[in-house]
């Protein structure tokens, strides 16, 4: 027998989460992008003609004042947390199905509030007072039918499918609601357009023809959703906040005030045998603005580390004048939110001393205290065509894996990159250079990738002193992203050795020579 389930559904949750967390006006047209296409948009944007899977440019042409943000799944989950807590207050045993959708067992809550409709109304009232004005409830046998019911309910209202009526309710729905694109497309081609048609087939035939996925869909369609609602375990409340009254405007003062709270946080974690490896610091200023940043630690945070991170976060904020540590507007509240915790056992020092690099980690954290978080970096080799692209600096303590995004992987072939040896001096910003032929004309590269003349003299150091070329090779042309008119680049590289034995890597782009790296 399927569990009687109540599902709460908040439409367009990713968009809601962004408007909420960023404090955008409720009616603002918002679109969230993933991989250059619209993933979700607000209803006001939809009215203007923005659609899912549209390209950014098309969406902006339909709706010029569109607010565009990158989709961030963690943001969704974080914004949904208060909603889950509010529901948990009234109906214990909440299961979050995904951000924006959660399920509760209907039995207890409906008995307490005198009926399923009443229970949904009470929950809706609570959520609206929280600021979630578009919430819809569905009650049915099993989470699947209940979710479908919620999707067909009106805002702030509920749709109750009577006990045992799930199969009948689902029968008219299109198979597309199964959220399994491959299976749905197959069913469509076989002429099975509604869940009722699928449910009407014998179970054994469905299993032999469509396999396990088909059998699962067949059970859902027949209203035999046996999944139970498993209540989530609320995370322990480890968030610590410091309210500063009166607000402070110096980073040092704020850091000093935070110290005791940071100690409490580390202590509270230790009581649970936990350590914190990532912390989110939220700073609220006097003018109501809120900034936040997540900090990772190569080992785990102790009190001094937490205080350091608070200070750095205040220092890097816009408006910091760097001299006396004043921040742009006084800070009224600081919140420390442990983002990732781990059991102490994974990190504890052994009896014979800490891990070999613990001393190094501590010393580098100390140096970060002097030169700032970004001032100390690890180097990761990445993929790329220019020497500067082939290495990436990652602030010490941050996850070096995050720097190696798939499109920058060193494993990929990089046609146009030069074979070893790699230059020992890699300029972070290329410098203008001059390459002349024997006749004194600037050397250029033709459209077919040939030089206009043999290089005879060049200047790579800056200034006006030209030195004769002893040996050279190239040009090696590179045609980057030719399919993308906005980012396409064409250039060519040249290795040059001067008569003094110095070797240089030059690059020519649009007729202008630059120094890219030095082999010294």
């Amino acid at each position, binding site marked *: 027998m399927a569990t009687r389930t109540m599902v709460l559904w908040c439409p367009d949750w990713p968009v809601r989460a962004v408007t909420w967390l960023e404090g955008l006006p409720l009616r603002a047209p918002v679109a969230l992008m993933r991989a250059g296409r619209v993933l979700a948009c607000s209803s006001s944007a939809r009215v203007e003609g923005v659609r899912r899977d549209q390209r950014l440019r098309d969406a902006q042409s339909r709706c010029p004042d569109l607010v565009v943000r990158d989709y961030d799944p963690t943001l969704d989950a974080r914004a949904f947390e208060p909603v889950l807590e509010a529901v948990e207050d009234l109906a214990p045993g909440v299961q979050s199905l995904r951000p924006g959708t959660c399920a509760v067992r209907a039995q207890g809550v409906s008995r307490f509030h005198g009926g399923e409709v009443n229970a949904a109304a009470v929950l809706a009232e609570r959520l609206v007072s929280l600021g979630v004005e578009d919430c819809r409830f569905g009650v049915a046998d099993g989470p699947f039918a209940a979710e479908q019911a919620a999707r067909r309910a009106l805002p702030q209202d509920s749709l109750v499918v009577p006990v045992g009526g799930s199969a009948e309710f689902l029968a008219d729905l299109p198979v597309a609601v199964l959220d399994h694109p491959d299976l749905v497309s197959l069913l469509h081609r076989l002429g099975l357009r509604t869940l009722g048609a699928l449910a009407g087939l014998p179970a054994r035939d469905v299993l032999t023809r469509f396999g396990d996925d088909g059998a699962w869909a067949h059970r859902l369609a027949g209203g035999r959703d046996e999944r139970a609602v498993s209540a989530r375990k609320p995370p322990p409340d480890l968030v610590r906040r410091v309210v500063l009254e009166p607000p402070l405007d110096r980073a040092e003062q704020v850091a000093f005030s935070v110290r005791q709270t940071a100690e409490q946080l580390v202590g509270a974690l230790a009581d649970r045998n936990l350590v914190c490896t990532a912390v989110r610091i939220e700073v609220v200023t006097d003018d109501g603005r809120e900034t936040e940043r997540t900090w990772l630690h190569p080992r785990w945070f102790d009190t001094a580390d937490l205080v350091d991170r608070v200070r750095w976060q205040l220092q890097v904020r816009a408006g910091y004048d760097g001299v006396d540590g004043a921040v742009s507007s006084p800070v009224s509240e600081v919140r420390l939110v442990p983002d990732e915790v781990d059991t102490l056992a994974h990190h504890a020092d052994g009896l014979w001393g800490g891990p070999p690099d613990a001393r190094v980690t501590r010393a580098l954290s100390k140096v970060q205290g002097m*030169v700032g978080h970004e001032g100390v970096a690890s180097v990761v080799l990445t993929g790329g065509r220019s020497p500067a692209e082939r290495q990436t600096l990652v602030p010490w303590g941050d996850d070096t894996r995050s720097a190696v995004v798939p499109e920058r992987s060193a494993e990929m072939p990089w046609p146009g990159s030069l074979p070893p040896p790699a230059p020992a001096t890699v300029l972070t910003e290329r410098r203008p250079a001059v390459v002349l032929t024997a006749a004194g004309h600037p050397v250029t590269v033709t459209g077919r990738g040939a030089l206009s003349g043999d290089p005879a003299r060049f200047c790579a150091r800056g200034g006006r002193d030209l030195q004769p070329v002893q040996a050279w090779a190239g040009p090696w042309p590179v045609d980057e992203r030719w399919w993308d008119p906005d980012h396409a680049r064409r250039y060519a590289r040249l290795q040059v050795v001067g008569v003094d034995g110095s070797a240089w890597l030059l690059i020519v782009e649009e007729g202008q020579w630059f120094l890219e790296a030095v082999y010294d």
Partner: protein
Amino acid sequence: MSSTDPPVRVDSFEHLFDHGAMTPPADVSTLERVRSLQERVRQVQGTRPASTPVDTLPALSGLLPGGTLHAGGTYTVSGSSTLAAAMAAGASQAGAWCAVVGVPTFGAEAAAALGVDLARTVVLPDPGESWLPATQALVDVLGVVVLRPPSRVREGEATRLAARLRQRGAALVVLGDWPRPDVRLEVVGGAWVGLGSGHGRLAARRATVRATPRSGRPRELDLWLPGPDQQVSLVSPHAARTGDAAPALAPVREMAS
């Protein structure tokens, strides 16, 4: 030249009792005994040995007194970032942590090819005003620190840092100028091979490196910096005599792919 070093030490020791020229004793067991006695004297006196060796690439041993970098030593390198990275490579391979301070143009790929382990390397591209305290904190725990001071270094600052170096056992490689370094290394000549006029590619460099110790005669060595195998190695005497490098070059066709 580590084999020639101990006899010299014994020579001066023996001078206390015997005047005039004498040949170093050939008996190795006596040398060993003297050295172990010296070691015991140091232990009883409670001072650190004057110089703990730091792992160094074998190719560089001919340039450095004692054949290796020494903990607490200061070495200046001019004219070659490759040489500076090579100075750190030996220690890095042996498991020490390295730092590169004040060198925003640090070529990590080249350093990794020489043997620097990037997982145990940190970079402070632009420490600004706090380069000296940052370096002091780094030498506390790291094996080798490569530093390019952003401004002229005063004698007092150098002395204080040197004291800290000796205490903690790190080696400092300075790109640029430094007051009274232990060894001054400079590339005085060299040529790249593999590049023609309009063909080939840079493959390897032969460089003449001159090392000037604080006391003693300068030495000069021909090194591959880097060699055709991306490593630092000695130029073999044969190649040095004929002047014909001729490392195995990849065919030009490879460049086109």
